[in-house]
């Protein structure tokens, strides 16, 4: 592979990794009947905790696993707030999760200017995490990091679990028809829903941790260019299939990388990529709908 092509692959994979993880987070939530559109906030919660651990414990051996795990836990907790609001007070998560996105974004702004700011107090960002907290680079000379493998492994695990485990089945059943899940399956739907919140949040939080440990090595404002929102498009394009989300994430990653290249080289506005993304989603929805209707008619 030529250096240039390799660099391109590297860029696409780096861009696709957070989309694959947040896309998976959204897909699992949606499958479970949880309309989590707060993956962006959960991503930031995860990134924040991972950065903090990475800076504090950056020299110790356990730094990397600890950073990733606390990142996932932070994301789960952030989503858990919306989960509790829904189960206790009936607050729709569509509203609460999107609000929590803003809380997380402004929280990060505060932290990188305040308690977590680098010691010179010049830049609005944290210090760099210690090298022990960095995700290993897979291909020397590129930015491809082990986060890609984490995303791939979790994608396959999620696909398998949804299909073959009782817990995955309960999640799908509760999402598809909570009444039948409760009445016919004697499923504790409240609990399944809460778990969907937590699992989804954990995946989005892990995405944030992976971004900090694998790409940026520090926390700063605007760390996420809206990954959590693009994740919704990724999940829907994949029709909520885990394997599909990984493929869709690569596609979206490629589109966005291509868009910035086009802007640089040919002065074509990078928003073109957004137009293409939306067109792809519309096309897929139209085709899926058309096929479903044909099946209905045939039946």
């Amino acid at each position: 592979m030529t250096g240039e092509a390799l660099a391109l692959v590297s860029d696409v994979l780096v861009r696709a990794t957070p989309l694959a993880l947040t896309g998976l987070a959204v897909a699992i939530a949606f499958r479970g009947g949880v309309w989590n559109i707060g993956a962006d906030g959960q991503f930031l919660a995860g990134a924040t905790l991972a950065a903090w651990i990475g800076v504090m414990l950056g020299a110790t051996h356990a730094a990397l696993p600890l950073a990733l795990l606390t990142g996932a836990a932070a994301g789960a907790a952030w989503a858990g707030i919306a989960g509790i609001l829904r189960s206790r007070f009936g607050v729709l998560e569509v509203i609460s999760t999107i609000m929590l996105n803003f809380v997380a974004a402004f929280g990060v702004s505060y932290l990188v200017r305040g308690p977590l700011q680098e010691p010179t107090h010049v830049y609005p960002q944290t210090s760099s995490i210690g090298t022990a907290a960095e995700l290993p680079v897979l291909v020397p000379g590129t930015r491809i990091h082990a986060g890609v493998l984490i995303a791939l492994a979790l994608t396959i695990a999620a696909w398998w679990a949804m299909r073959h485990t009782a817990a995955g089945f309960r999640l799908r059943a509760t999402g598809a028809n909570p009444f039948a899940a409760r009445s016919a399956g004697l499923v504790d739907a409240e609990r399944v829903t809460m778990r969907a919140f937590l699992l989804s949040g954990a995946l989005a939080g892990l995405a944030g941790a992976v971004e900090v440990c694998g790409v940026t090595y520090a926390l700063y404002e605007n760390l996420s260019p809206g990954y959590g929102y693009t994740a919704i498009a990724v999940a829907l394009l994949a029709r909520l299939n885990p394997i599909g989300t990984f493929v869709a994430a690569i596609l979206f990653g490629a589109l966005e990388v291509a868009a910035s290249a086009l802007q640089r080289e040919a002065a074509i506005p990078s928003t073109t990529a957004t137009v293409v993304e939306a067109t792809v989603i519309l096309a897929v929805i139209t085709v899926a709908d058309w096929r479903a209707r044909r099946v209905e008619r045939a039946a």
Partner: protein
Amino acid sequence: MTEPALALREITKRFGSTLALDHASLTARSGTVHALLGENGAGKTTLMRIAFGMLHPDGGTLTVEGTERHFRTASDAIGAGIGMVHQHFTLVPAMTVAENIALGGRGAYRPRDAREHVREASTQSGLAIDPDARVADLPVSAQQRVEILKALARGARILILDEPTAVLTPAESRELLARLRAFAEQGGTAILITHKLRDALDVADDITVLRHGRIVWSGLATEASESTLVETMVGTSDRAERESARSRSATGEAVLALRDVSVRNERGRVTLERANVVVQSGEIVGVAAVEGSGQRELLRVLAGRIAATTGRVAIPEYVGFVPEDRQRDALIPDFSIVENVALRGAGARRGRIAWNALRGETTSLIEHYDVRGGAPSVRARHLSGGNQQKLVVGRELEGAQSALVVENPSRGLDFNATDAVHGRLHAARDAGAAVVVYSPDLDELLALADRVIVVHAGRVSDAPLDREAIGRAMLGATVDRADTPPEHT
């Protein structure tokens, strides 16, 4: 002679292959309360929906105040001075009373005028209501008043009410019926759809009785008595002979037992009160009740699907349950048949799901219960309603050998499929299962049950295996104690 307010003549209506109304006629005189009586599914609501323009008759004519009308929509009927209060209210919970009543009006919306309008209508009709209250905060009885005011505000001179007392306490019912009486005395016409005999006899001037889509009785309330009405509503039993064929194989071992069980719904209303029920191994207990009597709650407590508010419940770990609304409570339409079979017991399942074994089980279930058009991988939504029912019955029968609760077993089934399901239930009973069946159709209940219990106004009582006595008890008429069989002591 003055023209009748509303006259329906020779109305016929078909739904697919079922004849819902068969040359049904009803004449509501101006300035009277008219009660339309009948069992569940007799066609009362269908007939009134035709009068309100929501359904179109296949035959017959409709006359309002002497003019023949052809309503295309409900707004046409509203324009002609007809108002209808449905069983399920059509209010916007987040809006105030005044806003709800103004909704659907024309021209600009002026909050002050709207409030004034409500106050006026409220004083005029005697239906007390606060125009600024949010509908969601109102109790059911007040919401119903809002519905009535809404109809009156749109100029309704003929008011149709579908089972209005079903959601009310006795005191609230009396109050409502008194208001309807007053409305009629001021020249209005009220048509009351009900299956409560007492309501009809207490308030109505005229009574019409529907049975299986036909008018079986019509006349002045003063000419009617409780017993003649029961007889016309439920019909005289011609299938009583069938019962002699049944075997009683109850072993005496109690499988399902409720002791002093009460259930309170989310609104705090007691729907089941101090129920004592024992179902033994090897018997089918039929539950008879009119809609909203607490039978839903009784069945769900017996099936372990809802918890009792107070009292003791002793039931096996898994009780098979066939709910009335299978699309909502029993099946996941978007899942395949095998996944729907896997749904049973999904709450207790651990680890991996053995899809291969389940596919085998599903294939034999499809064959065994004659689920047509079904392969394990076909989505449940692609099955016809009857075949969905067969699937659910099969799944629950296979899954629970010791106890089974069935709500409306033949809903949506044709004659042969009904027979097949009945055969399965009898076979399960003979194999030692404790079976509880609810059906709105008394004929079906009598064909299935070894004994019958009746739920009326949340209270459970025993009833003899006699059509008329059951009908009487269901409607809350006093049961002649001498009718009670000596065997249940």
